[in-house]
């Protein structure tokens, strides 16, 4: 290699001095398809390519953290607040806000000074207030959190708060961590945890989870993307195995953490039947013969049929009683029968024995009916085998 001239050396030195790693993008990205991660590795090592394409199927979305030395800290903090938002539980948010606030005693016990840490605590407190306000207004969209975390000053304050809590936790529980460290714990905390831009390592992450996150009951899982043998990323749970209301899922690639989201929707789907009934948007008839609705079309038009006192108490299961995030439309909105009868119990083959009890008012004018009769409009995706479980209408007639 030819020697470089002093001018060239000088130029290179200057470039080197001014070098800043090319890190693009926001501190916290919006949710994006995990296919982007798979695309990054498409031409890489076959193990990585296989693992990332499998990952895109099981964990369809992800959120990319800026690799600025705080990505692991930021991923956990953001994931924590984001889960609090999606649970939509105002009480939980208040409980968590006071739990985190109470951890200030840890800071005091290790000698942190309040006049120095108060601005960090304030920043976290502010996020809790924003969360509470959002939940009270029924806002589920996390854009405001993303925005909050993309304000660098604000983001740094929250991360510093979490760093200091982690450091204090470690200093108060040295026996749990010292064996995993290559230096005295105090030195580790000063040089790796309390600093402003030092990447989190495994011991630090475990301490962050133990000291700050675990009290929430949330689970924290890491999915390791590496070249180890296998076709899927290796999962590892950092929290004790227990039922958790929420999971913070981290994707680890050597030196970098991002957030991952599982493919299945996280909405609370109980009881399933009401959603399928209420959320139907496809009104094409399906599989009429199997249900034999036509048989009952006459029955269904009998006015006041359901005023039979023997039914009334049992009718209520039709109304969704769960406090679901979705407003489930009442049956009236979904299904309008030709006459103003009670539009309940649309599928009611076994109803016949019961109608003997109340003398139904005389049927004077039956309107002209289409040959189909009142259609039960179901989502065509409802499988037939599911029907007995997923249609509530059988309940009123049991006993």
């Amino acid at each position: 290699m030819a020697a470089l001239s002093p001018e060239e050396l000088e130029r290179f030195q200057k470039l080197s001095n001014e070098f800043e790693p090319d890190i693009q993008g926001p501190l916290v990205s919006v949710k994006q398809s995990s296919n982007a991660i798979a695309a990054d590795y498409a031409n890489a090592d076959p193990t990585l390519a296989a693992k990332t394409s499998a990952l895109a199927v099981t964990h369809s979305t992800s959120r990319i953290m800026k690799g600025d030395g705080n990505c692991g800290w930021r991923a956990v903090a953001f994931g924590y607040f984001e889960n609090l938002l999606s649970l939509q539980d105002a009480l939980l948010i208040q409980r968590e806000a006071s739990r985190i606030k109470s951890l200030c005693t840890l800071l005091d016990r290790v000698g942190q000074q309040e006049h120095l840490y108060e601005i960090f605590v304030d920043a976290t407190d502010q996020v809790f207030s924003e969360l509470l306000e959002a939940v009270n207004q029924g806002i589920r969209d996390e854009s405001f959190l993303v925005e909050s975390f993309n304000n660098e000053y604000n983001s740094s304050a929250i991360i510093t708060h979490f760093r200091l809590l982690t450091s204090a936790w470690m200093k108060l529980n040295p026996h749990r961590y010292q064996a995993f460290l290559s230096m005295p714990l105090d030195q580790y905390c000063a040089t790796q945890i309390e600093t402003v831009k030092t990447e989190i390592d495994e011991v630090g992450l475990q301490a962050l989870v133990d000291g700050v996150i675990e009290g929430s009951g949330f689970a924290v899982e890491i999915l390791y993307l590496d070249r180890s043998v296998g076709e899927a990323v290796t999962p590892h749970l950092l929290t004790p195995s227990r039922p958790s209301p929420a999971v913070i899922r981290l994707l680890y690639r050597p030196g970098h953490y991002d957030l991952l989201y599982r493919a299945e929707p996280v909405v609370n789907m109980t009881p399933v039947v009401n959603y399928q009934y209420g959320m139907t948007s496809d009104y094409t008839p399906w599989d009429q013969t199997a249900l034999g609705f036509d048989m009952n079309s006459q029955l269904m038009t009998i006015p006041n049929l359901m005023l039979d006192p023997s039914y009334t108490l049992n009718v209520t299961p039709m109304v969704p009683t769960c406090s679901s995030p979705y407003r489930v439309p009442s049956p009236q909105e979904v299904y309008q029968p030709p006459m103003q009868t009670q539009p309940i119990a649309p599928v009611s083959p076994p109803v016949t024995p019961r109608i003997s009890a109340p003398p139904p008012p005389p049927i004077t004018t039956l309107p002209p009916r289409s040959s189909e009769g009142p259609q039960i409009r179901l989502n065509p995706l409802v499988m037939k085998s599911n029907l007995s479980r997923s249609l509530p209408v059988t309940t009123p007639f049991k006993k």
Partner: protein
Amino acid sequence: MDYTMEDTQNSAPDVQDSKLDSSSQRNDTQSVTKRLQAELMQLMLSPSPGLSAFPNADGNLLSWTATITGPTETPYEGLTLKLSFAFPNNYPYSPPTVLFKTPIYHPNVDFSGRICLDILKDKWSAVYNVQSVLLSLQSLLGEPNNASPLNAQAAELWESDQEEYKRLVLARHRDVEDVE
């Protein structure tokens, strides 16, 4: 500096954006101010012996002047050294720039007063502050880090010839009143 800020803001294609930027910058400035005021208050309420710090008279809270006195039983015993602090806009998430204004002969300080100390660089923590930095510098005077010196001669003399070292310290020193 002010002009360049104005230029970039005026030329920003999206006016809305630059407005948002400047409002969040204002909030940041408020936080920086709040933090520095808290530090100043602490320094006044519980002063540490041998050090002082105060914002410059120009009303800009982002630049301070400080002094430390040399610890006893070190070559700097009895000397008062003046320093300047320049705080960045994102303080305390970046360290302040600290310079010795008093000429000082020390292995970890160069002839422009620049200091080589890890806590003022990559080991900076947002809980460090004017007081803790001054205390660290005070102890650096008596315990130089000779493994990575800015002034190699001083590092060598520290190990080999304390008397000559002390002579050079005193020769370089100027009284605080004489320092700009």
